[in-house]
């Protein structure tokens, strides 16, 4: 009972930190994201540093966790992703995702932060993103 409360609280704090990181990094500004993706134009490399910072810290955590084989600090098992195969859904999905990301400069995290701030653009994007999640689940269910 009590453990679930801690797990919920820590997830909330992680979501909050993640959102603050996105705001700090400039990821919540679609114009900045498009400036990073526009390598043929006036390229703004800032967001490459977001990847570097994020990956370095996450890499340390994943590496550390291999030395604590079974359980996390809150005593739940580590949910290592099991899929390793490069499949057609992975490639088609990533392609469509890249297309949408490049069209407006928003991906799911920043979109949720923007929507939360009350920005109408973020809200519209998130509503259709949620519809997209649902449609993908329906398609996957039909295929399998």
């Amino acid at each position, binding site marked *: 009972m009590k453990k679930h409360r801690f797990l919920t609280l820590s997830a909330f704090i992680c979501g909050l930190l993640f959102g603050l990181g996105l705001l700090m990094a400039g990821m919540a500004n679609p114009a900045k994201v498009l400036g990073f993706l526009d390598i043929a134009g006036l390229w703004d490399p800032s967001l490459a540093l977001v990847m570097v910072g994020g990956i370095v810290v996450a890499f340390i955590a994943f590496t550390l966790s291999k030395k604590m084989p079974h359980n996390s600090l809150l005593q739940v098992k580590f949910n290592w992703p099991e899929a390793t195969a490069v499949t057609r859904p992975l490639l088609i999905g990533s392609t469509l995702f*890249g297309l949408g990301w490049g069209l407006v400069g928003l991906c799911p995290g920043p979109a949720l932060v923007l929507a939360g701030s009350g920005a109408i653009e973020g809200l519209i994007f998130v509503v259709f993103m949620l519809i997209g999640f649902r449609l993908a689940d329906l398609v996957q269910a039909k295929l399998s």
Partner: protein
Amino acid sequence: MDWMNFTPQQSLLGGLLIGLATALLWLLNGRIAGISGIAAGSLASSGAERWWRLAFVLGLVLSSWVWLLLAPLPEVQVTSNYQLLALAGLLVGFGARLGSGCTSGHGICGLSRLSGRSLVATVTFMTVAMVTVFVVRHLL
């Protein structure tokens, strides 16, 4: 290079914060901080599986308000019209779900786990996004 808009310190610090959030969610909850998976699961799953996901999404949604307690919100410029935002939202949601992840799940978590599958996904969506921007800005 766009030196005017280059923000190395803020972007690196922001990246470290994102990394910290990812590290904590893994070391405490044993979960991958993949936003699309968490957000989709917060609607689709049930019970305890649902609560931590809803809490994470709530944290993201409220983050701009917590930011406002400390400083004014950073600049946000959206140049796309509503129709384009809707289309892009649909593509991003559908694509991330079908492709089992987005910039966070494949880009940050997958790459730092040295997952080949996530590397393929990340290279794919980065390339497509860059080509899309190139076509929209320089060809159309």
